């Protein structure tokens, strides 16, 4: 078990990053910090999926002169490019909503907002 984990240390690092993000989301009170935590969780998932495509001693999947196999799998990289763009979109929308919450309530602290209800 531990030896398998040691071989998959890259994946385990993503898990640790994911947990850091999860901790920020549940423990922090500031909405912007909560969303930063969500972004860290997203980054953890991205790094995990990109790490899935890595090959030992593999090259970037770019053909042409001087290219020699093995190549890193291109599919996870292409999928994660899509994911990053969607993450940017959601981040922009969430920050806008936080700006509106601040304009309307004068605070972005979750517990103060809960008291206002």
């Amino acid at each position, binding site marked *: 078990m531990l030896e398998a984990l040691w071989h998959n240390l890259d994946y385990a690092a993503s898990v640790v990053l994911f947990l850091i993000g999860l901790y920020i989301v549940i423990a922090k009170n500031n909405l912007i910090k909560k969303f930063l935590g969500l972004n860290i969780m997203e980054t953890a998932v991205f790094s995990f999926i990109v790490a899935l*495509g890595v*090959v030992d001693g593999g090259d970037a999947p770019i053909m042409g002169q001087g290219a020699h196999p093995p190549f890193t*799998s*291109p*599919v996870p990289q*292409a999928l994660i490019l899509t994911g990053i763009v969607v993450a940017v979109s959601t981040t922009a929308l969430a920050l*806008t909503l936080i*700006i*509106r919450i601040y304009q309307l309530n004068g605070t972005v602290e979750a517990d103060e907002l809960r008291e206002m209800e």
Partner: protein
Amino acid sequence: MKKALVTSLLIIAAIPMLIAVAALPRHGALDTPVQTGISAHYLEFGVEEAGAENIVTDVILNYRGFDTEFEVTVIFTSLAAVLALLLGASTAGATLSRPGSGVRPSVVVRFVVRLLAPFTAMFAIYVILNGHVSPGGGFQGGAVLGALFITLTVVLGGARVAGAFPEASRRWLQIAAPLTFAVAGVAGVLLTGFYLGYPTEVGLHWLRTFMIIAIEIGIGVGGAAIIATLFIVMEAE
């Protein structure tokens, strides 16, 4: 109490994930499903089937072209939502003070940013135009270009950066990415009979490369315009 609760929750979340990660095939092995599945086909036939030496570009623009088309629509939709939320509201709540808006960066920062701006723009254009043969592409170059606009906004102010583009052209720049995809898609219908189809005849390879570069430019310009607009609108609030 709360701390113990959070810690135990994190541990409960960590254990199944670590077990699953340990059960995965060894990192970097050649015989994993990721390597033996569709990736092997893409790596072997990607260049002749899709036309770009960078296989990631092939996957993004050709094999998964529909996905990318609606992905650029997603980021455009998010821009539309941000504009609807902020511009619609600013007429009502414009009285709120803007702390920090009077602070200007130091003269060193301003000078360095202005000095590096042309080189940053050149790098961004290089990344966009070489996306089919080297690492890079529309999204990456667009992000660099957008970052350039953001630093310029911090230094010069949003009004001056936005003022560099005529009012009428801004909307077209923001929608550039979905628009180029639509144009390329219709061109594909005319050329091959399939939406977003790329011509595969040997004599038409230059046209295929031209379509790929055109879409990359569209994605880069559109992405940069959207990122810059998002920042300028939020900064003004």
